């Protein structure tokens, strides 16, 4: 079998990233400290960063268990290489594009190579933790978001194309949207949109990218003939458990301090995940005659997705409603919407993250309460319908932007090197054809 030699892509991309930023690589004292570092807050944010880091390998197992065994390593590899390559992208340019002072659409370039991102607090983002702690916490979000999209094109994307697409997507979709929502002066932040831990930036964004890539890459070859069963659900359960654990860092860590809001986020995150897991199991039981393991973990992940934007603004009662409803919506998306529209979102990245993220963003506009978080806002059910409209607008802007730019990036990569593997490579599996390895040995 002839293969196109694309080994040079990785070092070339690294060089490209470095060449844009290496000149700026010098130690600089941070901005003048306006506040005092709090050791408790800093500890919690560092631990949270490590927990969010663990979510990417967790996602690898969650997705890896769902694919056929001939593609298992490819999915693990996609997640692990994202952890490597996007961590570099983040310190070189990603953090600057997302969070440096700039226009309302994109951050500036002055923080490339973390120039000026020091060990004192940067008051615009947090007054009690070192600026670099905030940076590294955000890095883990920038890593896992593109990894979520893998679920849509799993089992049929060329590894080289995947690598290039991922770096482009992080730079041209994730970084700008992160700036809109979280960056100082960002357009959606100024609009008053609430997104506590990334429902819009992470889940709607990745979910829409998933829908686009699933639509344009086309179906897996045998998917119309028979359903493709997961090769090892126990691995998916392991992955879901790691995601659930890491999500406490994701949501409670987003309080950026060891404080009451963090505790609230922790409690509602767990409550929503539990409610959603239970609901999906019950729906399965009722409709398909048995409560399934896959349904239960899908529900748990859906619940975690939906509570993400709301975690710092809602109480437990709202969390239960958000969790129950997300399982209903996601179940409809994967078992009713998907077959009718005929796209092959292999592992339901859109069905769970897109739909769940959209519901979460809207639910924040319904259930947010200043009684929980005075720095937030009241939602529709607490007498402020305007917040719901703002949430809807912010979500739709993200949907439209993510849809268009993802489509363009995909087409560009497809034009230059081709995105999809050959039919034979797809049939043989991506482990052997893309990586020269196998997940499971033959006999021993």
């Amino acid at each position, binding site marked *: 079998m002839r293969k196109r030699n694309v080994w040079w892509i990785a070092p070339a991309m690294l060089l490209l990233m470095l060449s844009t930023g290496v000149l700026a690589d010098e130690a600089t004292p941070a901005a003048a400290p306006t506040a005092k570092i709090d050791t408790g807050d800093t500890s919690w944010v560092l631990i949270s960063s490590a927990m969010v880091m663990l979510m990417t390998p967790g996602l690898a197992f969650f997705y890896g268990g769902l694919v056929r065994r001939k593609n298992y390593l490819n999915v693990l590899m996609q997640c692990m290489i994202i952890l490597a390559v996007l961590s570099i992208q983040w310190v070189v340019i990603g953090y600057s594009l997302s969070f440096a002072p700039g226009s309302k659409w994109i951050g500036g370039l002055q923080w490339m190579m973390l120039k000026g991102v020091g060990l004192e607090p940067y008051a615009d983002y947090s007054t009690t933790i070192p600026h670099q702690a905030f940076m590294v916490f955000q890095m883990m979000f920038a890593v896992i978001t593109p990894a979520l999209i893998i679920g849509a094109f799993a089992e049929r994307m060329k590894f080289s194309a995947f690598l290039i697409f991922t770096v482009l997507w992080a730079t041209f979709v994730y970084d700008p949207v992160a700036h809109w929502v979280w960056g100082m002066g960002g357009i959606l932040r100024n609009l008053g949109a609430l997104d506590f831990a990334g429902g819009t930036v992470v889940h709607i964004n990745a979910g829409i990218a998933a829908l686009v890539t699933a639509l344009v890459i086309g179906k897996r*070859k*045998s998917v119309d*003939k028979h359903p493709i069963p997961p090769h090892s659900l126990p691995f998916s359960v392991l992955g879901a458990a790691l995601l659930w654990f890491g999500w406490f860092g994701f949501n409670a860590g987003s309080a950026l301090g060891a404080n009451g809001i963090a505790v609230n986020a922790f409690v509602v995150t767990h409550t929503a995940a539990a409610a959603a897991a239970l609901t999906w199991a019950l729906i399965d039981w009722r409709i398909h005659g048995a409560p399934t393991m896959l349904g239960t973990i899908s529900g748990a992940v859906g619940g975690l997705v939906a509570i993400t934007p709301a975690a710092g603004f809602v109480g437990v009662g709202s969390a239960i409603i958000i969790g129950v409803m997300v399982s209903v919506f996601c179940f409809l998306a994967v078992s009713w919407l998907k077959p009718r529209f005929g796209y092959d979102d292999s592992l339901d990245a859109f069905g769970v993250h897109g739909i769940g993220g959209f519901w979460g963003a809207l639910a924040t506009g319904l259930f947010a309460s200043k009684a929980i978080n005075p720095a937030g806002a009241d939602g529709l059910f607490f007498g402020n319908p305007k917040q719901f409209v703002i949430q809807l607008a912010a979500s739709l802007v993200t949907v439209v932007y993510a849809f268009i730019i993802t489509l363009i990036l995909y087409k560009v990569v497809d034009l230059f090197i081709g995105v999809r593997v050959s039919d*034979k490579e797809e*049939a*043989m*599996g991506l482990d*052997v054809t893309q990586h*020269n*390895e*196998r997940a499971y040995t*033959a*006999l021993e």
Partner: protein
Amino acid sequence: MKLVIAIIQPHRLEEVKEALYKAEVNLITVSEVFGHGRQGGVTEVYRGFKETGNLLRKIRLEIAVNDSFVDPTIKAITQGARTGEIGDGKIFVLDLEQCVRIRTGEKGSAAIG
């Protein structure tokens, strides 16, 4: 009665199954086996060490048929499994002495279909 045994490439299984169903051969047993013919195995790389000559994954089909179905079965398997490259596999046809359906106790040709 004949027993048709075929060793084919795993990635051609779908096509072979389809061809067999079209030829109205609906009863097959499939197992995963390891081995290699002339192409001599695959190369895998682990931390820089190449392992050559590894046994390849293959699929083994066993199909018991009445005499009139032997040729259509062979034709269907060949059609589904052939790519023209080394490693497409082989078909063996053996005489089948007896066949018993366990549920009813039927014997011979009646038990096959």
